[in-house]
């Protein structure tokens, strides 16, 4: 017999928490989408005061399970227990009232509203006339931010925040619910190590308060620092749960992908060619300035920096999304004026953006349409007509190469898991056969196996003489893949490190200056 | 003098002739400027236009009412401001209690419908099936003309006539054509089409011809005596229409307004008669509208 959310909320408030071994328990969960079984008889148990990592390849069903626990999807079968009591979760509100809060994989903020309004929505403090007390709301936000050590003005509209700061706001919002269960679906995909370590401090203190935390990530290096337990999923099936003391990183990877991955960064040394791209004194208003660097054929230039250091802005300017206010860009020694992406593509550049939802996916269109859109600029088209079969074959080939998990090319990209969406977008640019490839957080939200795959592809591109600029907030990726690392801080380049001299400490020193 | 004119709507053939008549006449007068506004068939807009005229300090106002029931409020606004007001073409509801310095030059819509229907009755010899094409349902002219059809059909000498269908085609020619085609395809039999205006009547003729009907077998009647209608009549397609002296009404209204502005007395009511147009007298009207 399921208890209503209201009853449960009353139980929570009274503080009379019935004891049970597990805080949260899901059993025999099955969820089917048209053409896909996302979860098949899956079980999951969360202990109080612990951090439980959920592991699995892209599309394994992690987010789906969490969305069920957050009241967003209804399972086809199975039951959910909170502290040993069956509960029904028909809406996100039910979950929140039952003390389950979630940070979603795709950012879910109200762009036009301020940070404070976003955090306290539905729980705004009221004054004695029943009207919203904005001052009090701001104050509470500051208090919260202070506790979490976040430096964001509560009155900023969210649309003016960088992706990383938005993610911090999401985290703060989830924490503000003071829930018993906190689900974090890839909370750090846009964060650098500094913010990640903040987050871990927060998580530890929450864990100390007896809260149960579910943590999903594809960043393997984070895991052992924070997780107490691991559950592994594969293809919608539950594989097993282990204490973090009992397993190694390789064990987990083996459970996730079914076999060993030994070489994480298949970087091969490639003889460097001519300078292809040369940037001098590039500036964009007050956002960044004095950015100068060269990239050679076959070279992978890693770009490191803290969140908000302006790396993405530089990339956007290079590609003509936000044309530079001063400085020059030369390709093959010739100065070029790149004032929009169309021109950039004509110069055979490609740019994988950081925010796949806002500037990447054509969400309601299918995989094929998403993948082919950039290449149609100059290939597979004659007299305006698209060579359907040829382009479909090319896309299919690319999907196979990237191991995109999708029922078909005709599936809406919206229905793919986050990691698979990212692969499709990478495929979009690889198809254009670029000479200059700009990647902004290319493996954001990508599982280990696929990550190795993407790294291998990037290396291969470099081998063929492509100049690669790779922005990444993941230190091992930067260190493992780059020939040279450019470090930025507050809109300026603070230094270059060669592959040989680069270490995590040196990069961080330059990045925080 | 500046005279403010608020027309019910601009894109109506008949009212266009009235308006042009007024404007042409104003050009022949010295020192008379007309400020003509389009109320776009909106009562509230018309009322606001009158208030705007008052604010702009015109010497007199001519109103072609959108809704003749809304004239009480307008009369009050104008008389409170002390500015003369003349209603034109449509008879205001407060015709018998008009304040000082107000008058009207109008015609009774119901007469138009009566004239056309009586002619149809005559042509059919008092018996047969008729269909009615109505203008916009919310329009007063449409209502009055339609009512007239029913009144005539109920009269003794036309008892043999029967209204088999009545539908709206919103004054529009193509909608009229589509409506008649839809009737024909539904097997509705009729001997006469009585239309609230000429445009729909012409649409009916087009549809009947397209369906291969001989126009001698069907009586078609409209109202307005527009150029197109007179041409259709001369071609033997249209059997009756009704002429009202639009330009004359415009001229009369302006004269009245100017007199009132000068403080002179005018008749409170001026009725402009309708005239039936048939193939027999069509020549007399060709140059008129």
């Amino acid at each position, binding site marked *: 017999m399921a208890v209503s959310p209201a009853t449960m909320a009353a139980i929570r408030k009274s503080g009379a928490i019935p004891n049970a071994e597990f805080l949260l328990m899901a059993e025999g969960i099955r969820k089917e989408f048209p053409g896909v079984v996302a979860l098949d008889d899956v079980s999951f148990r969360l202990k109080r005061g612990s951090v439980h990592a959920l592991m699995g390849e892209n599309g394994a069903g992690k987010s789906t399970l969490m969305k069920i626990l*957050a009241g*967003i999807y209804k399972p086809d079968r199975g039951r959910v227990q909170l502290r040993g009591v069956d509960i029904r979760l028909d*809406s*996100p*509100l039910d979950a929140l009232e039952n003390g389950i809060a*979630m940070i979603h994989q795709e950012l*879910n903020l*109200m762009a*036009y*509203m301020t940070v404070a309004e*976003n955090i306290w*929505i*539905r729980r*705004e403090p009221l004054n004695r006339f029943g*009207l*919203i007390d904005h001052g009090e709301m701001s104050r509470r936000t*500051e208090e919260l*931010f*202070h506790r979490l*050590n*976040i*430096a*964001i*003005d*509560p*009155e900023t509209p969210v649309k003016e925040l960088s992706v990383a700061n938005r993610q911090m706001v999401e985290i703060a919002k989830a924490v503000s619910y003071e829930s018993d269960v906190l689900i974090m679906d890839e909370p750090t995909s846009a964060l650098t*190590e*500094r913010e*990640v*370590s*903040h987050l871990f*401090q927060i998580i530890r203190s929450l864990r100390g308060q007896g809260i149960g935390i579910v943590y999903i990530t594809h960043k393997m290096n984070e895991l052992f*620092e924070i997780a107490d337990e691991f559950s592994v999923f594969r293809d919608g099936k539950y594989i097993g749960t282990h204490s973090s003391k009992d397993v190694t990183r390789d064990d987990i990877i083996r459970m996730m992908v079914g076999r060993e991955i030994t070489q994480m960064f298949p970087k091969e040394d490639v003889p460097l060619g001519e300078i292809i791209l040369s940037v001098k004194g590039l500036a964009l208003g007050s956002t960044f300035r004095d950015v100068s660097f060269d990239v050679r054929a076959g070279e992978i230039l890693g770009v490191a920096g803290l969140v908000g250091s302006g790396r993405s802005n530089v990339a956007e300017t290079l590609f003509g999304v936000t044309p530079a206010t001063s400085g020059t860009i030369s390709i093959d020694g010739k100065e070029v004026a790149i004032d929009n992406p169309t021109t950039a593509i004509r110069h055979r550049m490609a740019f994988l953006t950081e925010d796949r939802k806002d500037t990447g996916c054509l969400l309601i269109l299918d995989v094929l349409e998403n993948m082919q859109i950039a290449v149609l600029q100059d290939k597979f088209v004659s007299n305006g007509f698209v060579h359907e079969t040829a382009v479909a074959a090319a896309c299919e080939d690319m999907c196979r190469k990237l191991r995109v998990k999708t029922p078909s090319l005709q599936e809406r990209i919206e229905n793919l898991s986050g990691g698979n969406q990212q692969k499709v977008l990478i495929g979009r640019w690889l198809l254009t056969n670029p000479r200059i490839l700009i990647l902004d957080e290319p493996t954001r939200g990508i599982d280990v196996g696929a990550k190795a795959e993407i790294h291998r592809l990037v290396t291969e591109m470099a081998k063929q003489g492509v100049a690669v600029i790779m922005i990444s907030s993941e230190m091992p990726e930067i260190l493992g893949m780059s020939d040279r690392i450019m470090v930025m801080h507050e809109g300026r380049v603070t230094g270059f490190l060669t592959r040989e001299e680069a270490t995590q*400490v040196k990069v*961080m020193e330059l990045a*925080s200056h | 003098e500046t005279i*403010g004119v608020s027309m019910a709507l*601009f894109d109506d053939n008949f009212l266009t002739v009235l308006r042009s008549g007024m404007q042409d006449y104003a050009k022949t007068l010295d020192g008379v400027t007309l400020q*003509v*506004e*389009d109320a776009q068939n*909106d*009562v*509230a807009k018309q*009322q*606001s*236009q009158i208030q*705007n005229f*008052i*604010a*702009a300090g015109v010497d007199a106002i001519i109103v072609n009412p959108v*809704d003749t*029931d*809304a004239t*009480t*409020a307008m009369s009050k606004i104008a008389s409170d401001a002390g500015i003369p007001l003349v209603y034109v073409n449509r008879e205001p509801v407060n015709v018998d209690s008009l304040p000082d310095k107000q008058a009207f030059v109008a015609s009774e819509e119901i007469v138009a419908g009566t004239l056309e229907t009586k002619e149809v009755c005559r042509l059919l010899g008092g018996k047969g099936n008729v269909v009615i094409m109505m203008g*916009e*349902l*919310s329009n007063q002219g449409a*209502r009055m003309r339609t009512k007239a059809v029913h009144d005539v059909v109920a009269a003794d000498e036309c008892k043999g006539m029967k209204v088999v269908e009545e539908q709206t085609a919103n004054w529009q020619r193509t909608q009229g054509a589509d409506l008649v085609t839809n009737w024909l395809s539904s097997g509705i039999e009729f001997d006469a089409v009585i239309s609230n205006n000429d445009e729909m009547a012409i649409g009916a003729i087009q549809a009947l011809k397209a369906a291969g009907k001989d126009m001698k077998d069907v009586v078609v009647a409209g109202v307005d005596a527009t150029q197109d209608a007179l041409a259709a009549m001369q071609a033997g397609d249209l059997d009756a229409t009704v002429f009202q002296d639009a330009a004359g009404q415009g001229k009369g209204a302006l004269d009245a307004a100017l007199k009132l502005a000068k403080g002179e007395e005018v008749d409170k009511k001026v009725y402009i008669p309708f005239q039936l147009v048939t193939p027999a007298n069509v020549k007399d009207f060709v140059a008129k509208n």
Partner: protein
Amino acid sequence: MSSESLVKPDLKVKTAHRRRRMPPEMNIFLVLIGIALVYELLGWIFVGQSFLLNQQRLTIMILQVSVIGIIAVGVTQVIITGGIDLSSGSVVGMTAMLSASFAQSSTWPRALYPSLTDLPFFIPIGVGILAGLLAGYINGQLIAKTKIPPFIATLGMMVTARGISKWYTKGQPVSGLTEQFTFVGTSIWPVVVFLLVATIFHVALRYTRYGKFTYAIGANVQAARVSGIDVERHLVKVYAIAGMLAGLAGVVTAARAQTAQAGMGVMYELDAIAAAVIGGTSLAGGAGRITGTVIGTIILGVMTSGFTFLRVDAYYQEIVKGMIIVAAVVTDVYRQKKRAQR
């Protein structure tokens, strides 16, 4: 190596020097001032009199758009949720007819319900407002329950409500209204009603949860839903309020004209939407303010009065009106972009 040692806890929240933001409707207010001044100038040049220093004109400027304004307040809220309401003009027509039919005086020979004449004023007013509320409620239920696009739901209501007003008295106007009832349409009462309504919903949007929910749904309906907002229920509320305001507008229209006819309110929805958008409400949802809508409404009124004042030929009026609407929004967009760049 633990990453903690790499982090300097150097994050301060700069609250003291928080950037003062100009309210976004400042821009469009300047546009309004600009238009008024141009008229003033042209007035002295061509007509030899002041445009603004005329009590009568200042009144009619707002009076003639106050019905549009009342609707626009409701429409603004609908647009903020990311929806649209095409039915408001027709609802004005329908509610004008309905309320007028209960406001007839016994001295009127053609009363629709001869036994229901001389009713106290609150009955016809209540009938009009409730009928509007009901129409809006149906819109809201349709949109929330069946998930059809607001455009279609309200288009359906637009056609249906217009049909009802024509059918109700078979096209006959309803006249002979009591003075008690028509009072609300006389003098500057419509303006008072408009500004009162605007104030109430300005407060509601800015200082109540109702308002926050409205913005949240428009900004990101997904996010609103996962924040625990019952999106469906809230949408019904918003559409019902918009319908209610259209009903109130219908009452005012009938009272002002001292009659009601089926053709009332045609195309008002477009003017109302234009007023909201000119005032900065984004059709994509999530942004907009009542103050902006009020200014947008007044721009429409000033424009109309100015045309008559400058004796602009009616044939050109529409052409110029179209261009001014576009120009006003262009100026606004341009100024906002410029400010954003700074």
